[in-house]
């Protein structure tokens, strides 16, 4: 581990991890072991990769908020401590080949994952516009950097302490209109992803969202991180956020049914399968 710093309400950790940096593509996440050896905390914590640099053979930067004991422990790490990381994990953002117009919507720490994506899009001559939001001013992540790189950056906060008072989706429609956006990418809590998706659907443009489900393994073997997603064949399946996502096409995610097994999902109880355990 290289450095640790505070960014408003967030902690940022930079870790020397050449193997991860090398294979990284925007949208990837990593999982971090917390608590040290002999810790009672067994599961790794997942974090999107915010930044990748080539110095020290390759570093990755994570941005996180303290939620519970695992992130609390992470926040106490100091420079030169070592961290145990697995990654890069997950399916990254699909990137358009053509120089299209793109709106990136981030809520709180969810914004972090959008910056490497923005860099890639800009390198492909896309037009990039940011919509960033949060509960309060100190929880809006990356506004300065967004202003620097994007065509426009629109901010909103729930308490009105920065930008417009309200949700990121309150401003999204006008940004899409103004920028003639071809596609939306979004990262943030499920209810925000849901709202962003319905705006994109109204404009009939594709939207890529990052789904954050509690994950025990991050590599596709534990089946704890599932959500109902409609496949190409129109069938709803309980798919794993960690390896089948975390990036999904928003229209395909059955947001209203997250946390349930929709009756028409493949293998749903009553849908022909018996209830075994």
């Amino acid at each position, binding site marked *: 581990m290289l450095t640790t710093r505070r960014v408003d309400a967030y902690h940022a950790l930079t870790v020397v991890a050449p193997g991860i940096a090398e294979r990284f593509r925007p949208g990837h996440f990593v999982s971090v*072991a917390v608590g040290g050896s002999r810790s*009672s*905390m*067994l*599961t*790794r914590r997942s974090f999107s990769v915010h930044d990748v640099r080539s110095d020290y053979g390759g570093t990755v930067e994570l941005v996180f908020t303290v939620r519970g004991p695992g992130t609390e422990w992470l926040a106490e790490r100091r420079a030169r401590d070592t961290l145990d990381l*697995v990654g890069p994990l997950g399916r990254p953002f699909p990137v358009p080949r053509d120089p299209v117009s793109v709106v990136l919507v981030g809520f709180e720490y969810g914004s972090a994952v959008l910056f490497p994506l923005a860099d890639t899009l800009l390198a492909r001559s896309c037009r990039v516009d940011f919509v960033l939001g949060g509960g309060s001013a100190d929880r809006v992540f990356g506004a300065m950097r967004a202003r620097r790189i994007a065509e426009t950056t629109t901010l909103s906060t729930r308490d009105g302490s920065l930008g417009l008072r309200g949700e990121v989706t309150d401003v999204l429609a006008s940004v899409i209109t103004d920028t003639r956006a071809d596609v939306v990418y979004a990262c943030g809590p499920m209810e925000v992803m849901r709202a962003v998706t319905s705006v994109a659907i109204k404009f009939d443009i594709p939207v890529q969202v990052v789904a954050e*489900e*509690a994950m*025990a*393994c*991050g*590599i*596709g*073997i*534990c*089946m*704890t*991180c*599932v*959500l109902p997603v409609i496949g190409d064949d129109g069938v709803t*399946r*309980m798919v794993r956020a960690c*390896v089948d996502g975390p990036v999904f096409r928003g229209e395909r995610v059955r947001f209203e049914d*997250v*946390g*349930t*097994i929709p009756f028409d*999902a*493949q*293998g*749903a*109880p009553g*849908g*022909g*399968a*018996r*209830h*075994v*355990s």
Partner: protein
Amino acid sequence: MSVDMRTFLAHVELDGPVITAAGCAGTGRELAQFFDLHRLGALTTPSITMAPRAGRPTPRMAETPSGLLNAVGLQGPGIDSFLERELPWLAQRGIRTVVSIGGGTVNEYSALARRLADAPGVTAVEVNLACPNIEDRGRVFAREGAASAEVVGSVRSIMLGDVPVIAKLSPDVADIVAVATACADAGADALSMINNPLGMAIDTATLRPALAAGTGGLSGPAILPLAVRCVWQVHAALPRVPIIGMGGVLTGSDALQLILAGACAVGVGTALFHDPYACLRIERELADLLQARGFQRLADAVGVAHRPPGSPARHLHEESSL
């Protein structure tokens, strides 16, 4: 000289004693991205059911002290899809595969066995008895010797003789030896223990159960002492029945505890979630520990903790090579 790590699951020889626990290694494809699956003693599949199953709603997991609660609910594609897509992938690569099966009735287990009986690439069948018996008010088979024996007997009678049938037992019973004995008597070639004891966590923020399913299975190091005890008790009562010990194995030393208690193979589950390479690391650590203790063969360490204190461990290989 390196330790001979080969072991036998009934009459089937495995190159090494460390295998993945059912439901903790995906289809094999996921772990194959990290290492060559041939380096596993064997891979155990998730419990396969007749029909596809969507499993339980989320949240499906909650962390507990040194443990993990899960309520996945046997999500899986069903036996047809398994035989069409998953098993051939493993079989073509020659990966030792223990196929776990789960059902809600004795008939469902029998039907699964019939489908597996002539499928190529089945190293052994593990009968997951921790499923509710829908013909007996949802009482879990594993909680009763008679119900367990009925399932095991039916599967044993259907599978070909050269495919070992393993009965997987749960610790939530008053007398694990009684259930183990019933299964062995019904024809189980080996026993696997322990499946997850039933646990629960309440989310003190929402004031509701942390898992959507309410209760869930507890796994991880927290349950290692229960696993060691079950293996110890069953090995003491049934010294000739091979045991796959599992439950909370995180290190070679944990694996060695189970082996000294009487297991001849060790299953690794939750540790894989933390470290995809866990099986390889644990096998290496185990080999080192055995070597440091003077064992030339893993087989010589099986059940050694049952011997009276006097018997010198360092000379065990001499005894057993007589």
